[in-house]
């Protein structure tokens, strides 16, 4: 399985939600609410990504007392990977914002 070089939007959102301990459904709801329904993650996609994040040790199982609602949280490794991707995304946004400001037509 491929590891994460650049985080996809889905992975980024999920990791962002797991900066605090949350179970899968709470992750989905938070993302849906925050984006006002613009970004929705399907259960199969979420499950696949959670498994991959665990494998990469970007998240750990925080609480499995409820086996149907396991709670996960970012590890130190996960936090630094997320931080790196924030920087990457900032560069993109800055470039676009600056360009739009300067390049107004007419």
């Amino acid at each position, binding site marked *: *399985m491929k590891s994460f070089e650049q985080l*996809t*939007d*889905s992975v980024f959102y999920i990791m962002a939600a797991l900066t605090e301990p949350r179970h*899968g*459904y709470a992750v*989905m709801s938070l993302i849906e609410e925050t984006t006002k329904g613009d970004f*929705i*993650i*399907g*259960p*199969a*996609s*979420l*499950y*696949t*990504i959670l498994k991959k994040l665990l494998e990469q040790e970007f998240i750990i199982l925080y609480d499995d007392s409820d*086996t*149907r*609602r*396991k709670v996960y949280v970012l590890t130190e490794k996960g936090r630094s990977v997320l931080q790196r991707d924030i920087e990457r995304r900032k560069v993109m946004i800055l470039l676009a914002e600056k360009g739009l400001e300067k390049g107004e037509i007419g």
Partner: protein
Amino acid sequence: MRQEKYMMSGGLAFSEEKDLQKLRKQSLKGWHVKRFAFMGYKLERGKPEDVIYSIDFRPMEESEQGEYFELFASTGWARICSEHGFHLFKADKDTQPIYSESETTIEKISRMEKPVLAITSMMVPISIVLCILFNLSNGMIETISRWAFTGAISIVIPLIMTSLAIVYQKWKVRKKRTLSL
């Protein structure tokens, strides 16, 4: 009146999408899929329902199933049945798809591809060896290897077709991703 009927599958590697559409049409007519059957599905009579179906492939431990099915249930996908790592789900018409993006969709296809490619890559060399054997040998060995080759080839051909179908599915998702720019 009959309460149960059988619907044939086009083969999940070849026509998952078509199968799911057919199941949806059956549900609109009041026939609901209840379980997997040999090369198909068992349907039961009920009231017409406007529902959609999805299939995921994920072999897993029983201890993992609780969380997995709970995630689906909380987004509106009720599990109908599971077999050999395939899980069939049902939801109301407007429910969001179980895979929301291409990366994880491709990973699903890769999970299906793995065992098929493993068996194919084992069976192809066996068939070749048997083919050479019955062409070079004579008498008893020729007869046996000829039969063995016939048996092997009747497994290898569907295996190769399935492998190709899976590779094609993957290519289709990749192409859609490139086009969605």
